[in-house]
């Protein structure tokens, strides 16, 4: 009984924290429609800031609390709302998600920049020095009592604000009907700002209360919040009372698991993963949403890739890889060799997210499964293991997708994130286990497993150069596959489904099968990437396949352009070539380089077409000017020969590799005959863009105005009197 009470108190304390954090999340989501993935990270930053004030600078506790909760929290919330979130109104779910995920990554990197990781920063709970309160059967620490008390105060306070204060009523009114609040003379922007101020303060409060438990560690503290997200999903992200109820359920489950779960190596991870498991289950039992048509019109434009372009892309990738493989040193090859396997994982996002509009935040988990398969079935270098990696990852993808099929948008994102957490925190950490003595499951063997290089026709591909070329060729082939899909029946079908599930269903499309197949396809591709990644790493561990890496890859692929294979290459190059290169060239950048992915996502995630699209547009004149293109190829080949013969070193070679295409593009622009230019200009003008974008995407022309008149029927139509 004592034990039961003790763990009830543990559970209720957790519940209190989850409730505080989740209510802040619900507040911002309902009033502005943006699910803030970075909500937990805000709490994390607050905990660090509090620690800094209280324990480094020695401020008195009340002062530190007031500054963090009543000054920093609200100001930060208002800043987020006005600078970042307000601009997201009317954008797609994917864009909103990318921006808030990037914000999460940015804030984790920021915390690690200010407070270098790896240093112990003890944060005692409140009144930790005092003796616990004796409740007879058990005791409760002051920190626990304060936490529970604060949660109750928050519940009462929120209720009072939302039902008594006029601005609180306006917040609820904005949930009902935002445009009607403006007719009442309320300023909806002020309502949003207040919601974000309050929401962020609640996150800060939760962060400070929870941090003494798990300790001050930026990434894990930010993601702990998954538990709070699960509570919010209980309330369908809308109802505060249900959110509190959800928090209690989750907190107690976690508490009792801590108390009663047998202490063995298989189940400890389950306790840590339990909020994610609960989140997954809650998502499954949520009532099925009605099929709906398009909510927001996307402005994205991914042209259908041409066959020539696809082959050109594939050949360029392979040639590039061969050049790298023959010029880089082995350590460099190991560093940059990750580009292509990770690129394949990024490619797996293109059909799933880019074509079908299904969000997945667990692609590296699928890659991890492929890697495990490779490690175990590929022992001795059996290349058939690659096939198994694809098939098993695809099967797991289908199993995950099966429940996920009924979810969409933010719920699907949460479901896949929960799956990733379950793998991260629990399954990937399992030691070898035997199932009924029939067969053994030995994932990462509780630590790391080694992976053999592929062996084919008696040749072992274990040098980094060959491995890079194999990965690059595979990347190119998978890219061709993705392009082939895009150009064919399945691709059209996926794009159609992204636009309107309702229309597809009423045309007779089986949505379940279609989603299932694209999930399996995508997971299979990710599994292949993971398997190749594993051979390159030679030894793999769970840390190679974590949720944070999935988030990063997702965000940067969207920045690059999730609708095209170029976006995947962009993501892999940025994360696994550009960033390491930057730190090599400029060692001091290692401190802030982590801010870049998040910053890029926040800044560029809004461009619906992606950066690659713009780059491609820039290179178009070059592709048209055959002579210049040929000259550039010759020049690059010449530089390559100079490098191979050691006339120039790597740095010169890299500089030339960048300089030649840029020069060629400029030359192509200059050499273009005027007539061609005029035609191209015309092309640009006549490019089919919807009428309402004109004037935004390009200036109005006389032809546009005539077209508009024609649409409006102003020329032909006479005044029709009904009589």
């Amino acid at each position, binding site marked *: 009984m004592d034990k039961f009470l003790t763990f009830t108190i543990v559970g209720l304390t957790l519940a209190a924290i989850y409730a505080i954090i989740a209510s802040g999340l619900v507040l911002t989501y309902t009033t502005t429609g943006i699910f803030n993935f970075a909500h937990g990270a805000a709490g994390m930053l607050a905990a660090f800031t509090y620690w800094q004030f209280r324990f480094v600078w020695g401020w008195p506790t009340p002062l530190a609390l007031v500054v963090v909760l009543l000054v920093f929290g609200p100001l930060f919330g208002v800043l987020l709302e006005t600078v970042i979130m307000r601009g997201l109104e009317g954008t797609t779910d994917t864009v909103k998600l990318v921006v808030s995920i990037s914000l999460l990554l940015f804030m984790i990197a920021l915390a690690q920049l200010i407070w270098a990781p790896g240093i112990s920063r003890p944060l005692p709970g409140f009144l930790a020095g005092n003796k616990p309160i004796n409740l007879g059967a058990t005791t409760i620490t002051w920190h626990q009592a304060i936490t529970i008390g604060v949660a109750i105060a928050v519940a009462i306070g929120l209720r009072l604000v939302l*039902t008594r204060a*006029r601005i609180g*009523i*306006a917040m*609820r*009114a904005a*949930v*009902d*009907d935002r*445009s*009607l*609040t*403006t*007719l*009442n*003379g*309320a*300023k*909806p922007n002020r309502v949003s700002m207040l919601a974000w101020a309050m929401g962020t303060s609640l996150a800060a409060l939760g962060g400070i209360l929870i941090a003494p438990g798990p300790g001050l560690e930026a990434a894990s503290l930010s993601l702990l919040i998954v538990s709070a997200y699960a509570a919010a999903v209980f309330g369908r992200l809308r109802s505060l009372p249900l959110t509190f109820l959800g928090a209690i359920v989750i907190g107690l489950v976690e508490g009792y698991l801590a108390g009663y779960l047998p202490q063995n190596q298989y189940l400890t991870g389950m306790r840590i993963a339990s909020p994610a498991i609960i989140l997954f289950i809650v998502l499954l039992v949520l009532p099925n949403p009605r099929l709906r048509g398009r909510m927001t019109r996307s402005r994205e434009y991914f042209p259908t890739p041409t066959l020539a372009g696809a082959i050109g892309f594939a050949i360029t990738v392979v040639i590039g890889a061969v050049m790298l493989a023959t010029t880089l040193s082995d350590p460099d090859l190991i560093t940059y060799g990750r580009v292509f396997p990770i690129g394949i994982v990024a490619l797996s996002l293109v059909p799933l997210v880019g074509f079908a509009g299904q969000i997945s935040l667990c692609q590296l988990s699928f890659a991890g499964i492929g890697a495990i398969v490779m490690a175990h079935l590929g022992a001795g270098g059996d290349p058939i293991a690659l096939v198994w990696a694809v098939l098993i990852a695809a099967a797991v993808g289908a199993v995950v997708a099966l429940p996920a099929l009924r979810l969409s948008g933010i719920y699907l994102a949460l479901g896949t994130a929960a799956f990733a957490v379950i793998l991260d925190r629990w399954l990937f950490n399992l030691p070898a286990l035997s199932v009924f003595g029939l067969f053994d499951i030995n994932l990462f063997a509780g630590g790391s497993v080694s992976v053999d290089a592929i062996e084919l026709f008696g040749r072992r591909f274990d040098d980094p150069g060959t491995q890079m070329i194999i990965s690059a060729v595979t990347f190119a082939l998978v890219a061709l596959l993705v392009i082939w899909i895009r150009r064919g029946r399945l691709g059209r079908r996926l794009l159609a489904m992204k636009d309107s599930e309702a229309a597809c269903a009423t045309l007779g499309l089986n949505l379940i099968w279609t989603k299932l197949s694209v999930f399996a396809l995508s997971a299979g591709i990710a599994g292949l990437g993971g398997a190749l990644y594993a051979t390159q790493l030679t030894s793999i561990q769970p840390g190679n396949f974590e949720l944070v890496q999935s988030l990063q890859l997702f965000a940067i692929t969207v920045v690059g352009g999730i609708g095209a294979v170029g976006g995947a290459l962009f993501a892999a190059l940025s994360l696994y070539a550009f960033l390491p290169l930057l730190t090599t060239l400029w060692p001091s950048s290692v401190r802030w380089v982590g801010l870049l992915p998040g910053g890029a996502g926040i800044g560029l995630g809004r461009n619906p077409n992606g950066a690659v699209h713009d780059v491609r547009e820039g290179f178009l004149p070059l592709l048209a000017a055959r002579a210049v293109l040929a000259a550039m190829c010759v020049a690059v080949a010449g530089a390559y020969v100079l490098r191979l013969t050691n006339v120039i070193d790597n740095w010169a070679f890299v500089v030339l590799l960048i300089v030649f295409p840029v020069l060629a593009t400029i030359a192509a622009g200059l050499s273009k005959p005027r007539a061609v230019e005029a035609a191209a200009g015309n092309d640009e003008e006549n490019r089919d863009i*919807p009428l*309402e974008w004109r004037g935004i995407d390009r200036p109005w022309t006389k032809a546009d105005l005539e077209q508009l008149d024609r*649409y*409006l*029927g*102003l020329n032909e139509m006479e*005044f*029709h*009197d*009904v*009589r």
Partner: protein
Amino acid sequence: MNSLELRGISAAYDRIDVLFNIDLVVPEGNVIALLGPNGAGKSTLLRVAAGLHGPASGDVLVAGRRVNGVPPEELARRGMCLIPEGRGIFPNLTVRENLRMMTFTGTKLSDVEERSFTRFPRLKERIGQTAGTLSGGEQQMLAMARGLATDPALLLLDELSMGLAPIIVEELYEIVAQVASEGVSILVVEQFASTVLGVADYAAILVQGRIVRAGQPHELAEDLSKAYLGA
């Protein structure tokens, strides 16, 4: 002096062009009825007038001043009130909270409640009830109370009758007539034509985004069935 003037308004909505060069004037203290079959663009015209939807071209003048681009909440504070189609209320708020929302225009809550309850005594009985659980007629009364609470100079009513039994519609329009007699200018959009024609000073018929006919109510009655049913 004209309370509201719409000059050469054209508008598109969700890629569908709905209004073509509309001119309409609401003189001070008048009730103007805008009639027409559904899909004609009536609601869009009201949304343009209230600043909720930007016109593709044309000007909106309130009390002689051009107000294009003025945000709707500013117009609301300056005495324009739109009661949108399909109950302009917050269904999850109580009646009292709905009325409280009106105090954002600067009116005191006591004044809002007094005005509302004088006109709609039934609302006082329902003050603590969630608005979504009121009957359709009561919801529309609450919407009107909300609109009238600030003592507006110009009232825009969109499909007051939608989904309501004719007897309740008549009751609501009696209140409209009474409000008009107090000097408030009213632009009312309706499909339920004859009731509103009994109240209006002037009426216009909008078909497919164009005003096809305008005049005194009695002049229009016969044109209406043609506009609606093509007979």
